[in-house]
Structure formats: structure tokens, C-alpha cells
């Protein structure tokens, strides 16, 4: 029907309805069996569907298993550490866990050959330990159900898989941080969200009420978008540090092609264009030495390679994931949407609705988005790692913001001088500005307001003028560079003694 709603006019503006499949009703792979699923106009039967998805999974993962990516040679898979799987309970991570189990746990046993004995190196597992980590959001948002028990039950169906449940408030818990990094956890950072500069002060001893700190932090954020994106960022960084704790070299996420397209567009909508590459695949190196590696040897050896974050379902659409789960009768606990009942929709939610709607009319949209974004690289210099999300931050962000949105009668150049001259002092009592240490997206999360403030998250939690930031921010604002790290930085210039 035409845009005015009158089918009698503008008939030439109508688009002909495209058939759901391009060629025939039989499977395009085996050319024989009648099709059971249409994937972007191509028809597949159920029997061909499973190898297809498993192939896409391995193609996206295996070239990146070895420390130096060198092609999809299965026999030569030798990761530097263990495998951590970020589990949300959604359909993507449920399918991912099933695929990891089939490919690297169950199959290993089934493939055992008699010759060479059971201890033959051929029978070594690719991953010595497979750990599933779930971050519970139940306490962060009102009227949320705690799903830890349900998730634990799902994970318990898989043998040889360890389960690490976390709560999102652990991000504010000094004891959680101390467990991984020892006493380097001592200072915490409090920040004032009143203005763009984000005045910050280190506090010592740290707050011992992680839930209170979390709720106060979320309640003080200016928009529902900020709350959703802060939670996502907290989960991501919690998983990264858990990877360090569990000596994992790889962190797998169950992001499907559809979810990846959504998160790419949503990230662009929140100013995270500089981190497009990390949104697809990321190498993260912890810059604080874990307590378990106090002698520094393993730190300089294994962990310097960091954690590789891979999304092995990046070529598998949400529909395919759903079919896999359905046909395999997997128990999907389900994910709640971001936000809370009274809040307006956030940018992530709007993007999800938009992409899902668009995909109905333009079925190639999600893969086009992902393929286009894979052709992009960051432009400009990196100023360092954002202290909040731990992703590379672009240089000159504050100057750019001051120039584009003039907020005072002083010339923009004055504003630039103001922000760039605010180098933070490093002693405990020093007041500093957080803004220069943040990436564009995190700074926007903390400062960008809407015409109307969001409805309160928890009636009992009032907005505070300053809030505690996650445990990893303080140590990075006043990090003492260790001898090992110094040596690593100048290693290539040192002559052998």
C-alpha cells in the first residue's frame, strides 16, 4: 500500500513481494531433502543445518585459538590458557555452550583411539579447563528475578565444565578485586557527575558496601541508555578480570550475527566508533599484575599475551541459533531486556527493535552491517586505555567535544586549554579530573543528559553528588608501574648481561 494508505494511487511506488527463497524448496546443500529452514533466501534441510552452523562456529573461532593466528588447522590448536565462556542465559550463549561442549569436550572423549594409550598427547584437550561465567543482574535493576540457580542447573548438564557465578555488584567489591590482584585494590575512586570535567577523588579505605555503591552509581546516571550501557560495560570488564583469575587466554561470547549488528549500530549511536574493531574481536591485556603471579615470571610469559575475546557465532543469525536450540531441545533461560519498567527505551533497545524490524523487509541487513563494520579501522591516535571500559580511547576527545558544543561564553579554545591542563595528580588525597581518562562513549555515558531526567531506579536510593566507580578505575588512576612491566616495555633495548 502507498504511503498515504490509498492503494488506488501511486501503485508504481509499491515494491513487489519477494519470495522467501530464491531457487527451490529443496536443500541447497544436499539438493535432495526438502528444506526445513530458510537462511537469507537459501533453503537448508535439518541434516545439513547442523554441520553448517558447526562449520561457521569453528571458522570464526579456530584461526584465533593459537597465540599467533595461523589458519584453521584443528590438530595444531594450542591455546595459551584456559577457556572462559561468558554466559547470559540467552539463546546465543546457550547455543555457544552446546557447540563448545560438542566440539571440544564430548568429541574429545569419543575420538579417543586405542593406540598410543590414553595419555597420548593426541588426546590432550584443546582447553585444559572450560569455565562458564554468569554475571547476575538481579540486584541492579528493580523487579528482576535472580536467575543464578537456573543458570547453574543448565550448566550442570555439561560435564567437565566449571561454573563461576558473579553478581554485577562484585565490580564494586574490594574483596573480589583483592582476590585477583591483591592489595593493589586499596584505593577506590569517587566521581562527581555534576559537570563535564567529572571531578574525581581517590578514597581509602574503600567502601565495603558493593550493592549500595552499584545502586548509587546506576541511580546517578543521567539516562536509561547510560544505565544499560554501564551495565553492559560492567559485565564485560568483570568477565575480562575473571579470565585473568581463571588463567584463561580466550573469552568466548555468544553474540550472534544479529546481536553483533545490533551492538555495532548501538555502539555507533553512543559514540563508540573508535572501538568498532573491539566490538567484533578484541585483544585485551591486563595492565595490573595478578596476585597469583607475584614472582612475575608467568606475568611476563603467559599473561602478556592477554585475553582474546571472540564471538564464534558472529556468522550465525539469531534465527539459526533459535533453530539450533529448538531442534537440540536446549533449555534457554532467557535474558531480560535492559532498563526498568518505568524507564523510557534506551538506545540499545531502540536499535534492537529497529534492526529486527528492518531485517524482515531487508533480510541481508544484519550481515551487511557486520561486513561493512569489519572493513573499518580506528582513525587517529590512541591516548591510552579508558579507565572505565578498558578499551582504547581516542586522543583529543575532550577538545573535540569543547569545539563542537560550546557551553560557555569563553571561546572554545579556552575550554580546550582548561581540559588539557587538568593532568591528574597521583597522590591519594589529590583531586583529579576523570574526563581525560575516559573514551568518548564512557564520557558520554556519564555526562549526556536528556530533557527529562529518568525515573528513579530505586525509590530508596537517592541521587548523590558523587558516586563510587568500579574497583578497576582507582588502581588504574594511580597505578605504580612495577619493575617487571618497566622491563617488558624496554626489553628489546636491553643487552644481555
Amino acid at each position, binding site marked *: 500500500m502507498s504511503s498515504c494508505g490509498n492503494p488506488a494511487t501511486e501503485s508504481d511506488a509499491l515494491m513487489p513481494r519477494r519470495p522467501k527463497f530464491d531457487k527451490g524448496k529443496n536443500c541447497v546443500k544436499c539438493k535432495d531433502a526438502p528444506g526445513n529452514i530458510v537462511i537469507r533466501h537459501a533453503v537448508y534441510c535439518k541434516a545439513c543445518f547442523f554441520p553448517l552452523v558447526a562449520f561457521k562456529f569453528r571458522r570464526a573461532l579456530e584461526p584465533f585459538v593459537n597465540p599467533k593466528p595461523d589458519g584453521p588447522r584443528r590438530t595444531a590448536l594450542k591455546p595459551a590458557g584456559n577457556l572462559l565462556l561468558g554466559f547470559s542465559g540467552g539463546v546465543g550463549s546457550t547455543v555457544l555452550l552446546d557447540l563448545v561442549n560438542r566440539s571440544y569436550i564430548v568429541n574429545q572423549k569419543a575420538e579417543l583411539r586405542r593406540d598410543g594409550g590414553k595419555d597420548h598427547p593426541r588426546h590432550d584437550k584443546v582447553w585444559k579447563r572450560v569455565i562458564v561465567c554468569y554475571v547476575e543482574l538481579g540486584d541492579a535493576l528493580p523487579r528482576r528475578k535472580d536467575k543464578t540457580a537456573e543458570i547453574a542447573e543448565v550448566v550442570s548438564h555439561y560435564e567437565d565444565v566449571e561454573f563461576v557465578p558473579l553478581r554485577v555488584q562484585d565490580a564494586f567489591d574490594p574483596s573480589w578485586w583483592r582476590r585477583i590482584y591483591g592489595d593493589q585494590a586499596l584505593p577506590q575512586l569517587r566521581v562527581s557527575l555534576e559537570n563535564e570535567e567529572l571531578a574525581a577523588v581517590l578514597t581509602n579505605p574503600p567502601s565495603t558496601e558493593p550493592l549500595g555503591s552499584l545502586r548509587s552509581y546506576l541511580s546517578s546516571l543521567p539516562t536509561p541508555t547510560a544505565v544499560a550501557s554501564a551495565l553492559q560495560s560492567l559485565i564485560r570488564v568483570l568477565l575480562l578480570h575473571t579470565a585473568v583469575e581463571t588463567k584463561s587466554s580466550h573469552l568466548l561470547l555468544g553474540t550472534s550475527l544479529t546481536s553483533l549488528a545490533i551492538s555495532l549500530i548501538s555502539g555507533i549511536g553512543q559514540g563508540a566508533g573508535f572501538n568498532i574493531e573491539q566490538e567484533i574481536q578484541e585483544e585485551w591485556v591486563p595492565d595490573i599484575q595478578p596476585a597469583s603471579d607475584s614472582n612475575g615470571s608467568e606475568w611476563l610469559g603467559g599473561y602478556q599475551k592477554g585475553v582474546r575475546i571472540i564471538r564464534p557465532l558472529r556468522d550465525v543469525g539469531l534465527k539459526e541459533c533459535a533453530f539450533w536450540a529448538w531442534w537440540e531441545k536446549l533449555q534457554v533461560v532467557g535474558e531480560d531486556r535492559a532498563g526498568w519498567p518505568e524507564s523510557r527505551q534506551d538506545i540499545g533497545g531502540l536499535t534492537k527493535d529497529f534492526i529486527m524490524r528492518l531485517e524482515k523487509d531487508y533480510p541481508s541487513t544484519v550481515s*551487511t552491517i557486520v561486513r561493512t563494520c569489519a572493513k573499518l579501522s580506528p582513525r587517529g591516535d590512541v591516548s591510552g586505555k579508558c579507565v572505565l571500559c578498558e578499551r582504547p580511547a581516542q586522543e583529543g576527545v575532550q577538545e573535540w567535544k569543547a569545539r563542537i558544543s*560550546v557551553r560557555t561564553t569563553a571561546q572554545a579554545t579556552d575550554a580546550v586549554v582548561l581540559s588539557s591542563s587538568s593532568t591528574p595528580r597521583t597522590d591519594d588525597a589529590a583531586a583529579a579530573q576523570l574526563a581525560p581518562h575516559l573514551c568518548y562513549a564512557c564520557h558520554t555515558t556519564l555526562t*549526556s543528559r536528556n530533557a527529562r531526567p529518568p525515573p528513579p531506579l530505586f525509590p530508596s536510593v537517592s541521587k548523590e553528588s558523587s558516586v563510587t566507580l568500579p574497583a578497576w578505575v582507582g588502581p588504574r588512576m594511580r597505578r605504580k608501574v612495577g619493575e617487571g612491566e618497566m622491563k617488558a616495555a624496554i626489553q628489546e633495548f636491553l643487552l644481555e648481561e
Partner: protein
Amino acid sequence: MPPKNCAICNSARAILKRPKTGQLICKDCFFYVFETEVHNTILEAELFKPGDRVAIGASGGKDSTVLAHVMKTLNDRYNYGLELFLLSIDEGITGYRDDSLETVKRNQEQYDMPLKILSYDELYGWTMDAIVAQIGKKNNCTFCGVFRRQALDRGAAILDVDHIVTGHNADDIAETVLMNIMRGDIARLGRCTSICTQGEDTIKRSKPFKYAYEKEIVMYAYFKKLDYFSTECIYSPDAYRGHARAFLKDLEAARPSAIIDIIHSGEAFEIKEVVKATQKLQQTCKRCGYMSSNELCKACTLLEGLERGMANAGVTDRARKRMDAEGPAPENLRTIPFFQQPNGLRRTEIAIAYTPSS
């Protein structure tokens, strides 16, 4: 709500909430920040140098009307030393362009700037009314967009200026970033956030309103009492752009900084070098001399399709092949006059405010 003081000068009473920052400010401070941001944009990109001949293109819509006013104001205030012109394109859409051209003519008198109006009919022998009569509304934006781009360059050449500045606002740019990602147009994605584009032998174009919100442009026109015509084209069923625009408006409602955040994202990435190497090299159209990525430029292909009654030849590859199979173009085919670069390609500016339609 009790009256509040302006968040910027802290003395006058605030009368508006700034769409871009959410600050409550007074009218004078709004003019100050709006104009200063455009000035910052011009300075940062080093768009002008004294003595440049700058033609301000005008559609008679809000963007071009405000742009003409701001360009004149900034030129006087900061002594840019520019010679300003107005350039309008008449697409030949009855009832759409006629009224808005009256606004442009009034601007010509108000600002004392020479005006050149160039029509599609004069240049291509086709008005948009005639094109739509042949092809219908589907894909008509492709014709209009391609024809307009070339018409602007040719108008600039007639005015003897060699630099075109378009009046796209922040909303247009953000929308284009999203749309180019969603339809995989990597070449356009790479250049759509550039404030200034220029090939080796092409006319320079810039966008001084690149960071100006559409709502603030309307606000500026309202408080300055500038009148303009709505330039929503009666032939624009570009569904895909419509989707992107509606989505952008939703994002802006969720968080007003979204528009500027998308532009920042667009500026923070670039096309990987390996991908750039696969892009087509620019050449000159063998028929009309205009820049092109193929032997024939897009406008000549579209015109040939129209003339030979195969309008889709310029729109889809399949239709193009079908037309090629019909044989070469007849000798008496109507063509676009050969393009002559302005003398010496002086670095001048033409500011033209058109909402992109394709």
C-alpha cells in the same frame, strides 16, 4: 517552574532549552553559541582564505536560508574576506520549487549577493516532473540526486567559483552514516563525515553546518525571524532513508547527543587500507567530461536511459546490460554539455543547502 537564569551568561532569563546540550539559555547566548560553533567548524577545517569567492547555494529551505544568514554574519564579524554568491537549482517540480525560489530571490536582495538559478530543463532537457511521468516515483531520487550534484558543479563553473559548500546539517550526516553502514556503501561511508571533499580535478565542497542540529537551525530561523519554505519533496518515497531518519529521531529522543555521537563515531573510523585498494579509481566521463568512476558518468547513464526509454538502465546493473545489448547510443542522442572546470580551480566556496535525497 520558576524562571531560571541562562546557564551561559548567568544574567538574562533563560527562554529555551538547547536541543544539543540540554542547557537552559537565553536568546543572545543561543545565537552566540550557534554561530561560534559554525565558526569553530570553519576554522578547524581551514575552509576559507581571504579573497575566496564563495557562492552560497540556496534552495529556499531552512538550511540554506539560515546558512546564507550565518555566512554573511560570520564573514562580516570575523573578516573572512569572502565574496559571497547564491546558487539555486530548479529541479522542475511544480508547486515545490516555485515558492522556495521566491525566498532565494528575497535573500539575494537582503544580502546583496549575486544569484544564479540553473534548471534541470536547461541542463538535461528533462524536468523532474517529466522524469517522474516516465519512471514513476520509485527510484526518482536517484535521478534527482545525481542530476543535482552535477548541476551544482556546473552552476559553480558558470559563476566561476571552484568550491562548493553544502548545507547539510548534523542530522543529515548522522542519518547518512547509519544508512551507508546498513546498506554497505563503504565508499560513501568513508567520505560522508568529511567536512570537505575534493578530488584532484573536482570542485571542492564543504558543510559548515556539519555539527548544527536541525532543531537548532529551525530555532535560529525562528528567533531571527527568517522565513523559509518547507522543502519536503513531493516525490520522495525513499523508504530506506525514511527508516533511517525515523530511527535517528528515536535515538535523539532517547538521548539528544546521539546525533553528534554518531558523527563522532563516523569520524573515529576509516576504511581499512586493504579495502581502499579495491575501490574504483576516478576518471573523466568520455561523453560529458564530468568526474566518474566508469567510462560514462552516472548522469549520462541516467540521461541515456531516459532518452532511450529504458530509465532503469542507470539504476540497476541488469537493466544497464540490457541497454548495452540493444546496441550503442544513437548519434542524435541528447547529451549533457561538456563540463568545463572553472578557471584555474580557485579555492572558493559555494555554500549550498539541500537536504540529501539519494
